């Protein structure tokens, strides 16, 4: 038994038939081959599967694919535009905000949700914003530095005079 669903994933309309019990993360990874979204646990704790659904960070292991029917989904693969890294991607690279890289996509998506809400977060706000995302490699130190850096770049971008390159 399957259900027909339609999603807009990273700007592209995708229609598919899914078993109702399949999770959004399974559909993204297995049916749409978007393997940048990872699975690190089975209790919705680790946050490695974080994506955006209609602009909000969601743990895609906690949502059935059928629940996302009609939604816009953004994954890590949709963060860079025209080959240009998202400020968070650039900052994670610059600040060594990742080691094994497994938590990184979810971490970036959680951080992007924060930066949608505020472009001037304190370190404390950053740490609370990513507390649903585990990283076992970095001790979070450089992740916080990367998010702080991305926020600064975003602010500088927003403050730049219109029309100036």
């Amino acid at each position, binding site marked *: 038994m399957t259900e027909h669903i339609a999603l807009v994933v990273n700007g592209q309309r995708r229609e598919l038939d899914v078993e109702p019990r399949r999770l959004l993360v399974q559909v993204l990874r297995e049916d749409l081959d978007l393997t940048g979204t990872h699975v690190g646990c089975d209790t919705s704790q680790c946050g490695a599967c974080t994506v955006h659904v209609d602009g909000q960070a969601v743990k895609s292991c906690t949502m059935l694919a059928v629940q996302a029917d009609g939604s816009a989904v953004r994954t890590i693969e949709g963060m860079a535009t025209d080959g240009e890294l998202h400020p968070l991607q650039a900052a994670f690279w610059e600040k060594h905000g990742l*080691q*094994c890289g*497994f938590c990184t996509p979810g971490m970036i998506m959680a951080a992007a949700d924060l930066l949608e809400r505020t472009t001037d977060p304190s370190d404390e706000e950053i*740490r609370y914003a990513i507390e649903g995302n585990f990283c076992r490699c970095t001790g979070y130190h*450089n992740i916080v530095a990367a998010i702080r850096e991305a926020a600064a770049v975003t602010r500088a971008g927003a403050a730049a005079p219109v029309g100036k390159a």
Partner: protein
Amino acid sequence: MATQVLGAPIKRREDPRFITGEGHYLDDIKLPGMTSAAVLRSPYAHARIRSIDTTAAKAMPGVVAVWTGEDTKDINPLPCAWPAGGVDNNINTPRILAIDTVRWTGEGVALVVAESAEQARDAIDAIVVDYEPLPVVVDAEAALKKGAPQLHENAPNNVVMRWTVGKEKETDAAIKSAEVVVRQRIVNQRLIPNPIETRGALARWDPGTDEYTIWMTSQAPHVMRLLIAAFVLGVPEHKIRCISPDVGGAFGSKIYLYTDMVFTAWASKQLGGRPVKFVESRSENYLATTHGRDHITDFEIAGTRDGTITGLRVKTIANLGAYLSTVAPGIPTTLYARLLGGPYVTPAIWCEITGVYTNTGMVDAYRGAGRPEATYLLERAIDLFAREIGLDGAAVRRKNFIPPDQFPYRNTSGLGANRSGIELSIDSGNYTPTMDKALTIAGYYEIGKAKDEARRRGKYLGIGISSYIEACGIAPSKWFGLPGEGWGAGLWESANVRVHLTGKVVVTTGSQSHGQGHETTMAQIVAAELGVPFDDVLVEHSDTAGTPFGYGTYGSRSATVGGVAARNAARKIIEKSRRLAAHMLEASVDDIEFADGKFSVQGSPDKAKTIQEVALAASVGYDLPAGMEPFLDETAYYDPPNLSWPFGTHVAIVEVDEETGEVDLTRYIAVDDVGKKINPLIVDGQIHGGIVQGVGQALWESAVYSDDGQLVSGSMMDYALPRASWLPGFELDETITPSTDNPLGVKGVGETGTIASTAAVANAVVDALAPLGIRHLDLPLTAPRVWHAIQSAKGGQA
């Protein structure tokens, strides 16, 4: 030489794929015709298997095959590659699936292969097993007692091995005659490593060639191939190819041979070559991937009233779980007991280790592996001793540090001499300046004011020190090897360097990256040696088909051992190139100088050939000196003369809430001496991550089994993994005392943070609670545990 690339904080080359979601981890791989495997795991910690009925499961949709222990009993048990050296080890290792008896919750009982992962899991639920529960023992001390349930016939009283090190008589005498002796029991609790990617394997047997390819989440694919071939499946080694794709963290837990690496390969052959994938769930990872630590220790530290330590006697019971994992007995012996001297001159040390079987998951190396346990014990002991004699802990440390003029330091307590008499000394060190730097940054001597201020807010503020040394860069073979410390193989590392016709360089290494950044640091080493642009050097690793044999990545050995192999291979390239350049420049080899990627004739710097020009000449091969082979392609194998010995002092400052017992880590200062840094960005990152794993042990993490052997902390909801919001940023500084035994001057850094931080935080909490008369608390220092301690100290109803 273009040395600026070595030591530069170059952004990591592996990151673009990880930040864009283009990494390729095991579970991302899909192969045509691929099947999924699932394991039925025992819900009992100890039980006889009366019968298994797989009929219903076999009839389930999508099920391809169902196997039980009976079907796989011709496959050998997994090997134990590191029995404790020089003593009898009662070895019992896991089988692919249990046959008659299960000995821990999570042990595999049946294997299902189906078209999809969901179908395989559905079918697992349809298997009916009739178990006869047996008595269970999960505590290692209880397992040694008379009348305890017995796990294995060949291990009376559940003893794996008894192993000793040091000077027994001298230690007894030192303790007997000491002015002060402090005794304490401390428990080093069991931990779950928790890489964010779980483990697994995907195997394909090729019916055309009778060859196996096994993708695995492994830190040591060459060693896995060797073990599977030589000990388990009996397949010739060259018929197996092992590949570690991108690996999402490991921390030791992915060093070992696991059943899935074998059963996926075996099952693929049974299925005529259909690929079989197994990826464990997080809950399975908690049950069935190895755990770390789990010691019960009684120690006595002896010394003089003025603070000189004269002796240390340690008795440790190490819980190794229901079976031995690949290198389990080596951890509490060689990597723990031999480190009990720490950075101090302790004239007499004696340590007895008893390894024990219990009805729990297997315990093996976890980040730091033995050395965090040793450091935690020693640094708690120093604080207890200092407190007993009323001296400052920093002063006692300073008084007992190995003086800088005594390096290379021969450990007088006998810890450095292995079982066959080969002795290692600590090559270099200068401990006091490092500690003083940490104390200055922390404001150690002005902390009283902060304590008073905190008391006014209802908090107890404490400061804790941890001074450590680490033995890392696990090698040399002659010291660790079978006749000495029981390690069943070599511990050298390898690298190959090729310079192609276009001047581009390919480096292959036998070590394996699972987050450390080998693709960046190895390229830095080789680019610096050859004087070529960093971007021209590609590093390949983790595939037995494309890399020279190597022992893999653990024990902070990739840079210290593998990095030197890469440097040596590059140097061989330079030596061959020098001869070719001499030929090209019509000069004598002895007159050729090499610098910044250029071979020039001494005295005529304009007469020069770049290494790229030489590589072109070597590749086309039209005009080579007589007898020279074409192409620049050199391999080096490096077996170092010594371990490397990083050291440092970490200082933690905590505030304990009087009302709730909650501990807030407010500052953390780490001053480490890891020698020269290949890439400071990566070095700092390693220290940060290491610190948090140790802080996790001090404050939150604990793998808990109930008395009947259920893993109570069996999911990420129950096991308290550190979160960003629980932690401060870290204040890092350094001293640099290059390793004198390492050609690159580097020491290991991957484990230092974890080795140091548990004791620093624990000491800080005990310091905070000292006004209440509390002198020791076991870990983790969770709010309830601390609250109870505060209440009992105050004489309340706790």
